[in-house]
Every structure is written in structure tokens, then in C-alpha cells.
């Protein structure tokens, strides 16, 4: 088991720190920077959907509705904590 952990640690650490080493040695054109700046938003999109529909197995609408509530609260610029509580409460009520 210890070797599994070591192997997994290497498999997750190398992709994480490699860019830290490379980024100084490589100057790239501005459009690459622009693409890199878009990565957080793209990643957030991919992390949200379709994953959110699997929150309750076999009931994709529960996650979708909770996501909608979260979106409304977030657009109203509520603190992240309230957005979390709103979404958690929604799933709780829908699965009672």
C-alpha cells in the first residue's frame, strides 16, 4: 500500500510543480497568456457541469435546481458562505 501512495504522490506532484519550473524559462507570445488567463473560467465551467447533476444519484434535477439557486445567490453578490448554505439547504429540502 505504501508504494501505491508513493506512486500516486508522484503522479499528482509532478504535473503540479513542473509548470513552476518551466514558466520562468519560457517566454511566450501574448496570445498564450490570454489563453492561460481564460483557463480558470474554463476549468470552473467544466468542474460544474455536468458533475453537478450527479449530486443525488439518478436525480439530476436536484443538483440542477440547487445550482440554479446558487447561481441566483451568487449573482446577487452574496458571500460564498451564503451561496453554499443556500445550495445545501435546497438539496436537503428536495431529498426529504
Amino acid at each position, binding site marked *: *500500500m*505504501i*508504494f*501505491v*501512495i*508513493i*506512486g*500516486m504522490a508522484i*503522479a*499528482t*506532484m509532478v*504535473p*503540479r*510543480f*513542473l*509548470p*513552476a519550473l*518551466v*514558466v*520562468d524559462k519560457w517566454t511566450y507570445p501574448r*496570445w*498564450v*497568456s*490570454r*489563453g*492561460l*488567463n*481564460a*483557463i*480558470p*473560467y*474554463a*476549468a470552473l*465551467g*467544466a*468542474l*460544474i*457541469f*455536468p458533475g*453537478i447533476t450527479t*449530486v443525488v444519484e439518478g436525480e439530476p434535477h436536484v*443538483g440542477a435546481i*440547487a*445550482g440554479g439557486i*446558487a*447561481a441566483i*445567490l*451568487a*449573482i446577487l*453578490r452574496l458571500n*460564498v*458562505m451564503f*451561496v*453554499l448554505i*443556500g*445550495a*445545501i439547504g435546497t*438539496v*436537503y429540502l428536495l*431529498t426529504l
Partner: protein
Amino acid sequence: MNTNLAEQQHSTSFISQSIKQGALAGLPIVFGYVPIAIAYGVLAKEAGLSLSEITMMSMFVFAGASQFMAAGMVLSSAGLIEIVIATFVVNFRHFVMSFSFMNHLRHISLRWKIPISLGLTDETFSVASLNKKKAKEAHGMWFYAAMILVAYSAWVLGSLTGGLIGNIMPKALSQSMGVALYAMFIALLLPSVRSEWKVGVIAFISMLVNYICAVHLDIKEGWSIVIATVLGGVSGIFLLPEEGEEE
């Protein structure tokens, strides 16, 4: 001499301010991590991992999706190579994320960059990226370090708790809390969309690509997220304004 001392005190107070802000920014991640970490601890225990193995995996791997998968694979008696390759695939998106974030830390020394890069997860990366202005502040690195450390502690202690006392959360609650991380991602994304609608287009493109890849093309989730993130990033080359670079 006196002014020098005053400057030092001034700088210390800036550091502690950055640390406080960072810890606060990490708090929502704690809410998302704790139930998942406990669930991982419980599953890993069922898979036959010892308490120290459960905790060590969280300390050295620090990647929720991979650890869940690994515990499941151990349960179905998969081999070492299989687990390591699957881990690499699931977590390869962190390479793309790290590249994006390290681009903002170009002027920072490796002594900061290496530990911060090792602490990047989907969640810490998202919070860090949306606070990228901190990278330009004198003591901004303390912000990222504190935020990551808060998230990391929640992850490690949550796993330990799961392994130690089993599932302490009522099922209805842990199921409800499963939505927490998604809600956090939404809360991070939408304010940016509100101030720049093109950000919403980028996110939408990547959602669509992820959906097509995962549901219709049946591509493994790890690769599907990588493909969607990269294509979303490519769309940003055309969508984001030129001055968005330095901001």
C-alpha cells in the same frame, strides 16, 4: 534606526493581514472538503487501508477525486500500476491549472512557487486565480499559503476523522453537502461573468465540451475535463481583451 524598526513592524502587520485574508478565503473550501474527506476516510477504511495509510495518502496526494478512485480500486483489488496511471489521468488537469496560475507568479522565487504549486487543487486553484491580484502585492504569497494550508488541514483532518470514527454525518446531510463544492465553483464563477460576459461564454463552451466528451463520446472524466478546460482556454484567446493580460 527607529524608522527601520517601524518599517519592519509595518511589514509584519501586512503579512498577518494577508494570512488572515487567505485563511478567510479558504473557509468555504473547508465546508466543501470536510464531508468529502470523511467519506473518503470511511471508504478507504472499508477498502482495508490502515489509519496511517488513509492519512498519509491525504497528506501526500491531496487530490480528492484520485483518492476516492484509488480506495475504490483497492477495494476491487486493482494493481499498483493501474491505480497510479488512473491517478495521473484524473489529476492531469492540475498541470493545465498550475500552468495558468504559475504564469501570474513569474516574478516570484521558486521557494514560494514550488510549495504553492504542490498545494493546487481544483478548489485552491479557483480561489487563487480569482484573487490573482494578490500576486502583485508585497506579501501576497502569504495569502495563497494560508488559503492552501486551511484547505489542506481540512482535507487531512477530515480524512483522519472518517478513518477514525466512521461516517459521523447523517446520510441526508452528507448527501446535501455533496453540492457544496459545486456551489462554491458557481459562487466563484458568476461574479466574474457579471463583470465580463465573455467569461460566461468561455465557461459555457467548456461545459458544453465536457458534456459532449463525457456523456456522448464516453471519454474518461479526467481527460474530458482536461479537453474541456484547454478548449475553453483556447476560446479565451479570441474572446478575452488584450489588456486583460496585465490588468
